[in-house]
């Protein structure tokens, strides 16, 4: 009898723990024309469209109030342009298509989140911030995703654009993909002008090991410091890389 009680106790403890763990897989789909590539070459745009056709796999781990969200690295694609000749110099425009790395770290006791910002071959650092929006409008509109009744909340961004977030109170865990985790239930779908991100698999196969911590070696920026940092990198990246090879004729 005692053994049975012990077993039931241990089992219930195990069960209690399992409620604090969540793994959600998401598909992330870039919408056609969702990204402005008008300054790029036709070959780049075509390659981009091809790449955008396949949903990107992303995963969210939740363990005892801590969150870690990530995507999976994809190698860069190099698009070689045509040769052009000026005098004895042959020039070829080389465009590199890189795929953003997504990492979000949120500690239960911290109001703010770390978002990894990666500028390939330039720099990696964290943006340390609390996701905020101009307006948060909880709507009465609901949709059903599989068996989950999902409620809509519309977030108005600083530029006036609206992000639609669907969360379900049937899984009352405040967690979600990217920076969308602060709602009264698990976020199953996020839709913006440029992408749709939706849950595909939900289970409790997450443990403390899955919750990655931010890399202490990387710098963190927040507020104005972050804005200045981004501005600095943008101006650096504005010019495309040119590979010049001199061919002596």
């Amino acid at each position, binding site marked *: 009898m005692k053994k049975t009680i012990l077993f039931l106790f241990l089992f219930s403890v195990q069960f209690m723990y399992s*409620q604090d763990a969540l793994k959600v897989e998401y598909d992330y789909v870039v919408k056609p*024309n969702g990204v402005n590539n008008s300054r790029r070459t036709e070959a780049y745009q075509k390659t981009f469209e091809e790449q955008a056709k396949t949903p990107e796999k992303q995963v969210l781990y939740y363990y005892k109030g801590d969150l870690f969200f990530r995507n999976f690295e994809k190698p860069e694609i190099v698009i070689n342009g045509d040769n052009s000749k000026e005098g004895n110099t042959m020039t070829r425009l080389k465009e590199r298509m890189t795929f953003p790395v997504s990492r979000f770290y949120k500690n239960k006791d911290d109001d703010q989140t770390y978002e990894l910002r990666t500028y390939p071959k330039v720099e990696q650092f964290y943006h340390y911030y609390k996701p905020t929006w101009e307006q948060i409008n909880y709507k009465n509109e609901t949709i059903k995703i599989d068996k989950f009744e999902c409620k809509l909340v519309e977030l108005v961004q600083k530029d006036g654009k609206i992000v639609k977030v669907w969360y379900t109170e049937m899984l009352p865990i*405040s967690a979600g993909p990217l920076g969308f985790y602060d709602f*009264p239930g698990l976020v199953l779908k996020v839709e913006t002008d440029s992408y749709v991100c939706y849950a595909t698999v*939900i289970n*409790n196969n997450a443990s403390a090991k899955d919750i990655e911590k931010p890399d202490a070696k990387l710098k963190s920026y927040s507020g104005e410091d972050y804005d200045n940092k981004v501005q600095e990198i943008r101006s650096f990246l504005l010019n495309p890389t040119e590979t010049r090879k001199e061919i002596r004729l």
Partner: protein
Amino acid sequence: MPKFLLIFILFIFSFSKSQQINVILKDEQGNSTENVNVQLLKNGNILEFKRSNKEGVSVFNISENGIYTIKLTSVYYKTEVFELDTREKTSFTFIVKQQITEIESVEIKSRPRIASAKEDTISFNIKAIKDGTERTAEDLIKKMPGLSINENGKISYNGNNIGQVLIDGNEFFGGNHKMATQNISADMLEGIDLWQNYTTINGNRSSALNLKLKDKYKGKISGNIEGNYGLNDNYLGHANLFKFNKIGNLALILDANNIAKDPISFMDFYEMNTQNQIDNASESTSNIDVPSFLNNDGKVKSKDNQFSALQFSKTSRKYSITAYSILNAAQLTKANLTERIAFQNQPDTYNFLENRTENNKGLFGITQIKARYNLSENTFFYYNLGYNSTNDRFNQNTDRAFSDVDNTIEIKNQSKSYHFNNYLSFNTLLGKNTKAILDFSQNNSSVNKDLTFNSNIGLFGNTFNYLHQNFILDSQQYSINFYLKNKNKYLNFNFQSGFTYRNSESVNDNSLLNINDKQKIDSYNYINSINISKQIQTWDLSASLDWHNLILNQENQNYFEKKAKIKFSPDTNTTQEYSFEYRDRYENPSLILLQDNPIFDKNLSYSINGNLLSNELSHYNSYKFTYRRFNLRKGNNWLIILLYDNTTDVFTTNGINYGTYSVYENIFGKMKDRWLGLLSNETPIKSYLSLKTKLSAMKSDSDNYIQGNENKTEIQNFEINQQLSTNFKKFPVQFDLGYIYNRNKFKQKYYLTESSQENLRILSGIRMNIKKEFIISILGEYLKQKTAIQLQKNFLVGGQLSYKKEHSNMEFNVRFNNLFNLNNFNYINNRVTEMGTEYSNLAALNGYVVGGMKYNF
């Protein structure tokens, strides 16, 4: 004054304090509860959301005092709703009760939408539809709302045929949809997109269905190889080899079987040999005869196929190329028993019982190369080379038992043909909105037919028992066209000016009848065409006028052809479209119809020109109304088509029955008209059940002559097809239940003779996926065929059982068809022709059972 200031400060202070409320949560033991979701609501609307902190506190800012609702949710506590009045106090403590919400593992198969539309692309969500019972891309496409596949494997979207099926944006065997849909497996696909404005390799606008591959099938050799063997020495071997990568898409398909499984249909053959025309120009046409051995309507006694196909396509910024080559050999036998009863006032001796066996061997090859070279972003050359060669050997033994004589005839017919065409176009943009195209084309074709009859009695009313005919038809065609297409803010304007020279020559050689007849037609056709189209809000209007100046053997003719279309697409939540089309065109008689000497046919008849002249024209008018409605979200769609066409000065026949043979004189008739109606609906009844309904009716009247008497042949056809299909998300078994009722009626009005036939099929199917390892699909069919004097009932059972261990490359299959009729199976066919009433019993393919293995890589 200081008192007043103090009161004011206290007022402000009290006001600001009244805007903040504290919600404190404790469990039943009095401990603080953290991480509970706390929603503040007013009138049912969520105002703010917080999570309780370590002390179990959530702080809300409110703009006014009043009655609010607090909703508490958590995986550890019961969902609770409390009311609070902030006019009474600003701090509220609630006790939460423990209740654990269990998180189950869930795989969300449903996706945001079954299909979503963005500009001119409709993306179908495979994951929302796939349940694991699908083997090929075809099985998936059939389940997509609005998409359907007909018996020839052609895909249509809301009743409109899809132009191309692409693999990751690259062409795949031209317009032959089956090659992609039946050879690409369902597991290889990541998604399916319908591109409604796809620009083909030659710059035309078309629709295309793009099959998107999973990454793991790119850049390596993939495909499968399969071998099956079974009862009665039946076999099926099939191999697909694909390599889809940056170097280009390469596909090799091999097949050999003796179960009448045709890798391509006669429609595919026709389309693969049809040269793509510039849009807005005349209809795409093919002058190639479809080989008789391809015309498999399921009513063959046996059929063996050997097939190979190779395809390559590659697209880059500078150029695009797509090329394929197909080789198909086939051997088939047919057998039927026909009783013909001549019309009442004709002699009884014309009645016969015919026992006919056909033995047919054939071979054809097709090569198509299409290439596009971009000179700049706006200018390109397009080139197409097509070659086709066919060898069709047909042997027929016919025994006709008349009341006074038994006639046994052996017929041999060998037809060899080739067709070769070159097409080159130069396409450029002139300015921003104007496109100019200059094209040249050249076509050469030759058909050589040898027909031999050996009979025990005199043939075709003569005394000789042997007859040999050689008929050759050669033609060359050269054309040059210039097209100008302009889109401006007022309207779209297209102009075509061109010239086509065609030379056709026939030689009819029949030494026994002393016939050596050469006939020739030289035609020079000058075409000028204008097309104008304009969109006014939700209305699309377009009209075309073609002026033809045709010189046929030095006779000059002028005529206009017209086209008009009005389309109305109301701005509603569902996609709706009403359209009305009108078209008229003219046609000259072909050289075959103009033959002044008998052209014998293997059906024991001959045709000869009665009163047709080469420069006379038949006039065709067509009116078509279409209604489409498609609800993307619900997957519900409607399609209604009403079509009426009418031909005046029609080329028709005067049929004369001589008992042992018949004669058809090619003559002018007054008119021919046809009514056609189609209604198609697809409705999801429940989330797991959908109903497809298709209703079609056709009535055709054509003027002709029987024994020199004016007659009207009337054909009526009515068909209703309804099918219920399940789509259980969590249940690995799916069911199909449906019926097809079909009624055909034939009438010859001069003799007031008619016949009809009814067919009823009741279908019941089951599709299963057991533990992701067994895929089973079985279709049972009850077939009842009924005519005035015949009744035939059959049970047909067919299907496939596959076993594939998860993550294994090996798959085991058993295929079976018509299980209860493994040795003998017949169809009946009843109709009234110009020669009398015919009751036929056709030997159909026996059932088969084959089993084997498939290796996927």
